[in-house]
């Protein structure tokens, strides 16, 4: 049961949120010119890492806002939380 810091509401427990999958999946534009492979990748290919994962969450049972989370899929450590449009935090090596 994660404790997530909604950038708008503060720390709330996981049940108020929904995980909305990997973040930073850009829609190929113009879509009509995207190759089949490009479109398939946009639809289906996800990084699914063991470790740090950029993902989108929505505070469904709260402010209903979407935001981004950098989370370890291994330890559930939350490394960063940032709003859509804000730059993706770089991973320190």
């Amino acid at each position, binding site marked *: *049961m*994660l*404790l997530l810091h909604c950038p708008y509401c503060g720390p709330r*427990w996981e049940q108020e949120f929904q995980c*909305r999958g990997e973040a930073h999946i850009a*829609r*190929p534009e*113009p*879509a*009509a010119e*995207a190759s*089949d492979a490009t*479109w*398939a990748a*946009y*639809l289906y290919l996800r990084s699914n890492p063991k470790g740090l994962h950029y993902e*989108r969450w*929505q505070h*469904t049972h709260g402010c*209903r*806002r*979407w935001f981004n989370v950098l989370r370890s899929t291994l*330890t*559930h450590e939350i490394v960063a939380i940032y709003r*859509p*449009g804000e730059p993706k935090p770089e991973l320190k090596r």
Partner: protein
Amino acid sequence: MSSQPFRLATGGRIDRQRALCFRFDGQVYWGHPGDTLASALLANGVRLVGRSFKYHRPRGILAAGVEEPNALVRLGEGARAEPNTRATQVELFDGLVAESQNRWPSLAFDAGQAGDLLSALLPVGFYYKTFMRPKGWWERYERLIRQAAGMGRAPQGADPDRYAKMHAHCDVLVVGAGPAGIAAALAAGQRGARVVLADEQAELGGGLLAAASLIDGQSAGDWLALALATLRAMDQVRLLPRTTAFGYYDHNFLGLVERVSDHLAAPPAHLPRHRLWKLRARQVVLATGALERPLVFADNDRPGVMLAGAAATYATRYGVRSGKRAVLFTNNSEAYGAAIALADAGVQLTAIVDAREDVRDDWAARARERGIRLLAGQAVVAVEGRRQVAGVRAMRLGPGADQVTGLPARLECDLLMMSGGYSPTLHLYAQSGGRLVWDPLRACQLPGEARQAVHVAGAARGSLELAQALVEGTAAGAQAAAECGFAGALPEAPQAEPAPAAASLRPLWLVPLSQSSGGKRFVDLQNDVTAADLMLATREGYRAIEHVKRYTTAGLGTDQGKTGNINTLAIVAQKLSADIAGLGHTTYRPPYTPVSFAALAGQDRAPLHEPVRRTGMQGWHEERGAEFEPVGQWRRPHHYPRPGESMHEAVARECLAVRQAVGVVDASTLGKIDIQGPDSPKVLNWVYTNAWDRLPIGRCRYGLMLNEEGMVFDDGVTARLDQHHFHMTTTSGGASTVMNWLEEWLQTEWLNWRVRFTSVTEQWAVAAIAGPSSRALLKDLAENLDLSDEALPFMGVSEGRVAGLPARVFRIGYTGAQSYEINVAASHGMALWLALLAAGEKYGITPFGTEAMHVLRAEVGFIAVGHETDGTVTPDDLGLARLCKTSQDFLGRRGLARPALRAERKQLVGLLTDHPKTVLPMGGQVIDRAELRPPHPSLGHVTSSYWSAHLGRSIALALIKGGRARQGERVWVTNDGGLAPATIAPARFLAPAEAAR
């Protein structure tokens, strides 16, 4: 009061002044406040308390706490009965009723013990071996096996009790109120941290409740009382007795269950039975203690074979002798303390059988002082007596502990205490993600690297000595508080007298069988798993401990191997000649002990399980006796039966009313989203397949929504109320999906668009009137509302008053009849509904439900999302390609051009059965031949199918491969075990009324 023959005259924490009457297997016994069911049974000389799971062997009480694998009883009666309750953890109360399990016809004579004799037929993995043939017979075997094996019976009837939930936060959660836990809570509390101290027992104190040592110059009991008083006096400290921390989840979130009133003979009505605590702790201190391990020797499961520490606990805490003459079989020195405690309580100690050679430490000296005979370098190889230990035999243990030699010595006893060492209770630690490391010296797992904010203190990290536990607890509590920001002077640890010096233990995982004895050596008593089973598994090739666990069932069941897991691990490692450390360990999963479903559900059950959404007219539907169907969280009227009317008759009547006169349906459940802002048309252009820029104000348009794969997921009509203001409707079940879809794009991709979405589903009540008389009816009730075709054409929207209520009227419909959807404020819903019914009487107005609505829409070929679509259907499949704009992009457009969609697709068509009265089953498979001869390549399936009273025949919609080009072809549809012939037809059986085109 009948006598309690095994009760000591003095000592213990029981109240001898009061007697409690209880029944076990119908027999009346007496005990005292402070007793557990187990201690009271032992006091009464009841040794046989259950039958084992697989072999139905007689079993007695093994332990004094949570780890008890044998004494599982059915507690209580009727709907309150609870199976598999550990008698060692049941507080005795007056009138308690308990029953043994797994026995037939009686505990003393059990017909199933034949299973013991037939055990050759029940080898490990017998599920996978013995009963696989002949094919199809498993169902027969299963019934017999389930009857013979098993763990108790579930209660009948609904649970009459109430269960509560509590959400809480604290700085420091201390789990376990033994010496380390109390010291930790004191230290953290003194620093000012908000502390929760939870312990599964009724009395806080853990090992202190049976300890004889001095702490800070006081007796352990006096020190405990003072410490608890100190804790109680701290406002920010909460003590939770009878509370098991059963799960340690992410980010220091723990689940605890508090047994609030299980121990009360007559619980007051205001108390819940259990309370589930969902606790988030900034820091956790695990002072969870250690569990003593049994030794594995022949017939180590006989009633009267008991963990040494348990026998000591019964003597010192409960004032009960677990036998008259005892033998201790041990591989460590700490267990000597138990033998000495029993000797001091007046039990005759026949001998101590110690696996170690030549023990010369303080403990051995103390035993010798009491004149106890010491058999060093020996092991118990046989237990006499079936239902009760009658004596044991010991032999010399070879140097490798792989054989026993010499002549057996017979030792007279009725109690065999055993101790194979101690396993720190690290279930919660492992659940938290902490690593466990094998310590070969102490022969146990110890906490390794932690993953969460957790500290481990006392016996849980292998520190068995009281003095050390107090020091570690104080340090852990102080540190946990400091990490929450509560600094200050380091609290002084309570001082306990040092423990006697102890020689190290000799690992003895499996006592060799003597040539004469034989017998089963049990590793997991609850699941009847023996050392032979483990060896067989390794011979059959099992290597991974997780596989061995599942194959042999060692460590399964309600106790999850609390006493057996380490022995299992060690024996498997021995057989594989592997390092125990290298074998790892099985995964510790919550819950630590079983938690009732009722506690987890709390009050979220029956109507509170999921909220029911009600429309403004719901009360009328209920009063009218409508049959309801769930649609999302709504309960929509399915049909309104008149007295004596069948469902089919009601639906037919409702349908005909719409086609011939006028019907009214509660359409309030349709999803409604208010869209405002200059970028609204842009949003609609993206989320719908068709174009929205040129939609005039006051007009509506139908739209399909696709996901990015190109599949239809919702549809609905959206109206333009103003230049920058739209009213979108969605399906009843899809409203939240659509709202989320819009928000997702707006918030994550269209960041700067000037548009806002507001869900207004519950702000509007909607009554839709449909049928040739709908306009006349509306005219009677309308004010400031021009209903002419010019002012309010088909697919138009107007505002005015209906029945005096401010209303928004859409001339749209789903039935193909002329219809109007009248939207009023939700609070006006019932007034509108009643006004329509009253004014409609002269037109023959008929309320209709969702079933009639579906028949009517299917007659005119309108799709229903969820019937004609299932997430794999495109607009073209539905014959709606014309709704897809070609000029610009929209969500899902590129998805439609995927190669996977270029093959022949299933297309929406109508089906007319040869026999007009045959109504095809929805979901029926369509094939191209008249006989059932597998394999049948499927052409498609029926998506909607109804009896049309208006047409006097059945109608069906189906998705069929290349269907549009197969008009007129004959197909066959699976129907009630056979096939129904039908002909492919256009997906529209009736043209919509002139006024609804």
